[in-house]
């Protein structure tokens, strides 16, 4: 019976779709669906996987019943999350069964953005793309291919990087916001660190967070929440104290012991105000500073000028009364927080957050980080730890480039990263868009987007839209029809993360590094392919040296080869049950290491069924003596910054301007007045903060924030998350603007009323929610809604606050130089 039906469906879809490939897709889902209706046997297994809904890197354990995933849970032995999971991860199952997923490759037949497609086969699709790419190489212009990647890391990134290099384009870039595996600019400048510094939150006694929503979205939220639980449990040193500084009461602020609603943009001033007290009361770690820090005391330069040091500057300028005036925090509070911060060590001041703090972002962050330095938390247990060692993964065979590629690679990147005003950035996605629209720049012929969606949630999305219209061929490799896919000429549907082999490198958490592996939990439901394997097939179709660069048959094989290094290195362990783990620790402490696997295949079986390999670091000994800075010390006046500044300035110099003038301009761009060398201290201008009060036409400041549920929009098509979008306001399936009750009262706005929020860039109509957890002059709108594509539940729901953002320099990208947006509200 079922057989004939199945056959019938097959035939029906054959005639309907007219393509053998799509029949396979329908057939497969149909088969899985039919199984559910049948008599089935409930055999159950657990398959390890990795959550891809944020860069946190949580290990998943997927409950698979009769070959069908029925629940996503945390992997209990995974070091990142130890069986715990955040709501978004738990809802990941719904994204697998999302009815609006891309089901087969397609090519555009209507106008750009019209969303009219024709289904084609994979062969056909890859042929079209490969032919186009081949012609680029034939024309000796491989650099006119640009590849833009979204949220992924590990082997996929290496594959694209390798592809771009082998192909010969310098224009491979990632569109991410403060990727956790990258060092923060502050660490890069002050520590000379090339790896992300980590925060030993679980062991800390005091956490002072400056707008860092560490319980909602930063780095690995689940891991941080676990640390939060530890901090609350009253460990040896008693219950840790948490103070949160932010104009809006985020979830992190609500969970803290004290919320300091600071005026927007004055976080750095507050940090220096706290530093002032620590210095004045001599509560800082003198030993650490004497031995490891440069720039604390003043010095006389080579030109004979006297330069005041950090201490002098802070003591002079940031008195509690003045800081209190600027920040709006009471002086007594500043005094008491400063004392507790300095005395309850180990203490951590968290500066990193995805969103920019203000125009003078870099210096704000430096000011905040200087607090860590003052109390000697650098390298201390429960403090700020330097970067973890990198993973012992196998290198891939050396790339042999042909002449075309070499020539292509020698051409300067189109986004201008690393020079001019972008001298601090590695990659500037908007630079590509600008280059496309700039008639003088070299043209982009083909743009491949892998999980990147520049047309949503960015202040510069309009720029991208115009740019995409100019690019002759846009290819989107993605699982869902996002906004950008609508503009693509070719759609290559990717496996959902539960359908594919996965890998992930976790190097940004304190105390350990891990390499996670995820197995497919279910065969692909549709006619999709694994992103990495698309690269392989593409390279193979292009042929030549490009094809030779990818000797692997499948992604699995590539992964297996790459992991070999983990086995060979003799370091770390495959994760296992807590009792085994305990035994290992005992042995390790005594200096033993028991080899657990005889062969690599055994190792591979173990890692792919348990989900991860990890390496623990023993509690960090304070043995820090060298930093990778010019002086070898931790620099409060980062010479690296000065050096980069000068390099960039000298590149900019043209006939009429001097290096000094150019340097001044760049400093202006960093939000600092170009007055002499003092500017390289974590010193802040406070004028911009005061100017906010009397702006009549746009009296309010807009604060956008991420929700733990839908994040930057990735969870927007998951009904569970939409329905439980937030706990602090009633906002299911919608967007809202949070307004302080006093403000709302003055504007005669009632809770739940529709209001219009207007900025110089545009206006949005949305529901008002009164919330006393915000400063009166600040209004807050969550990001993640307001999609124009991306599935039935995401589309046309709520608003995207990036429509209001006036600073077109996208906030939260590289160094976020985003100026805050000023808005006004009226009743809708």
């Amino acid at each position, binding site marked *: 019976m079922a*057989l004939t039906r199945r056959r019938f469906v097959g035939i029906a879809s054959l005639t309907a779709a007219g393509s053998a490939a799509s029949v396979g897709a329908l057939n497969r889902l149909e088969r899985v669906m039919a199984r559910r209706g049948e008599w089935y046997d409930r055999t159950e297994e657990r398959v390890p996987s990795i959550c891809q809904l944020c860069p946190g890197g949580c290990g998943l354990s997927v409950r698979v019943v009769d070959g069908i995933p029925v629940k996503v849970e945390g992997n209990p032995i995974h070091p990142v999350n130890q069986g715990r999971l955040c709501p978004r991860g738990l809802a990941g199952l719904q994204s697998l069964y999302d009815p609006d997923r891309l089901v087969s490759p397609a090519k555009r037949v209507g106008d750009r953005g019209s969303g009219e497609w024709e289904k084609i086969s994979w062969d056909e699709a890859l042929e079209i793309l490969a032919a186009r790419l081949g012609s680029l190489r034939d024309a000796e212009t491989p650099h006119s291919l640009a590849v833009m990647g979204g949220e992924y890391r590990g082997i996929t990134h290496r594959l694209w990087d390798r592809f771009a290099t082998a192909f010969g384009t310098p224009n491979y870039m990632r569109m991410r916001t403060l990727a956790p595996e990258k060092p923060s600019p502050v660490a890069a400048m002050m520590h000379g660190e090339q790896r992300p510094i980590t925060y030993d939150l679980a062991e800390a006694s005091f956490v002072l967070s400056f707008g860092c929503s560490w319980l909602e979205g930063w780095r690995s939220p689940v891991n941080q929440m676990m640390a939060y639980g530890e901090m609350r449990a009253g460990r040896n040193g008693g219950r840790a104290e948490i103070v949160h500084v932010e104009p809006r009461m985020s979830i992190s602020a609500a969970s803290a012991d004290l919320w300091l609603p600071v005026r927007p943009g004055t976080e750095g001033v507050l940090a220096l105000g706290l530093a002032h007290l620590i210095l004045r009361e001599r509560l800082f770690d003198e030993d650490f500073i004497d031995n490891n820090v440069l720039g604390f005391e003043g010095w006389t330069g080579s030109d004979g000028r006297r330069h005041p040091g950090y201490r002098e500057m802070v003591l002079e300028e940031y008195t509690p009364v003045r800081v209190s005036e600027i920040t709006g925090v009471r002086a007594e509070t500043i005094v008491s927080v400063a004392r507790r911060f300095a005395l309850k060590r180990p203490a951590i001041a968290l500066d990193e957050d995805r969103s920019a703090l203000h125009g003078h972002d870099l210096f704000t962050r430096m000011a905040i980080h200087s607090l860590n330095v003052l109390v000697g938390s650098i390298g201390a247990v429960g403090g700020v730890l330097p970067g973890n060692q990198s993973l012992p993964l196998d290198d891939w065979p050396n790339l042999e480039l042909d002449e075309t590629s070499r020539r292509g690679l020698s051409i300067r990147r189109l986004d201008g990263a690393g020079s001019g005003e972008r001298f601090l950035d590695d990659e500037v996605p908007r630079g590509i868009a600008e280059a496309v629209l700039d008639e003088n720049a070299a043209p982009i012929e083909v743009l491949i987007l892998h999980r990147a969606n520049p047309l949503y949630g960015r202040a510069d999305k309009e720029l991208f839209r115009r740019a995409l219209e100019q690019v002759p061929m846009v290819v989107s490799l993605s699982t869902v029809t996002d906004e950008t896919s609508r503009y693509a000429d070719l759609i290559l549907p990717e496996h959902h993360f539960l359908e594919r082999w996965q890998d992930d490198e976790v190097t940004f958490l304190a105390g350990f590094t891990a390499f996670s592996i995820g197995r497919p939990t279910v065969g692909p439901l549709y006619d999709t392919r694994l992103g990495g394997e698309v690269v392989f097939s593409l390279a193979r179709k292009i042929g030549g040296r490009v094809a030779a660069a990818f000797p692997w048959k499948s992604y699995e094989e590539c992964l297996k080869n790459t992991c070999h290094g983990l086995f060979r290195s003799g370091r770390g362990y495959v994760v296992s049950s807590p009792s085994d783990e305990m035994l290992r620790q005992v042995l390790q402490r005594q200096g033993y290491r028991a080899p657990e696997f005889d062969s690599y295949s055994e190792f591979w079986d173990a890692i792919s069924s348990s989900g991860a390999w990890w390496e623990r670091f023993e509690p960090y000994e304070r043995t820090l003596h060298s930093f990778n800075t010019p002086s070898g010390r931790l620099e409060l006046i980062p010479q690296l910054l000065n050096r980069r500044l000068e390099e960039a300035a000298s590149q900019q110099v043209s006939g009429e301007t001097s290096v000094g003038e150019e340097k001044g301009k760049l400093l202006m761009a960093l939000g600092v007045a170009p007055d002499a060398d003092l500017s390289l201290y974590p010193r802040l201008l406070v004028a911009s903060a005061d100017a906010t009060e009397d702006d009549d036409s746009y009296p309010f400041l807009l604060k956008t924030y991420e929700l733990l549920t839908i994040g930057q929009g990735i969870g927007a098509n998951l009904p569970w998350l939409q329905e439980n979008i937030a706990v602090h306001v009633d906002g299911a399936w919608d967007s809202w603007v949070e307004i302080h009750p006093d403000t709302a009262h003055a504007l005669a706005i009632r809770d739940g009323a529709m209001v219009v929020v207007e900025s110089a860039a545009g206006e949005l109509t949305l529901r008002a929610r009164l919330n006393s957890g915000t400063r009166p002059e600040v209004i807050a709108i969550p990001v993640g809604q307001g999609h124009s594509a991306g599935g039935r539940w995401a589309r046309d729901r709520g608003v995207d606050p990036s429509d209001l953002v006036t600073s077109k320099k996208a906030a939260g990208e590289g160094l976020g130089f985003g100026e805050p947006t000023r808005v006004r509200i009226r009743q809708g």
Partner: protein
Amino acid sequence: MKAIGISRAARRGCAAGLLLVSGCWQGSTTQPIQFNHLLHMEEVGLECTDCHRYVKRAEFAGRPTVDICAECHEELLTDSAQEAILVEYIQADEAIPWERLYEVPDHVYYSHRRHVAVAKIDCDVCHGKIGRSDRPPQRPLQRLTMDFCLVCHEQQGASTDCNACHR
């Protein structure tokens, strides 16, 4: 939305109607192969658990897969037409679409292991004399109603708490 509402209402109406018309009507089941339980048990000497392998180990009894059949029926053993159908399935390595005969609703938690391995209840008690049938019955030999369960539970002193079986 509307259509579904109607069909649901209709289904409910039909169910109520049927219930009134005949209290014990259950529909009939036709199996893809006219399997002879009696032959396998009497002449071949198999036990229930030889083919329904999970009976003592899991919640479900286990629908015999082709692999199990293939252990004996790699090739035709007899000239039975039914066996020929089976061999076709085996050679195509395709699952035999057995129809389910005994079924409890999805709001009931039933575990074979609990009843067979722990409580040592014979298969016959719930499945009737299916082992002695020479062709697949069209209707369950024993109607599995809640009263049927409860009577036995009360006799055996097993839990009669609703929550013990309902989920």
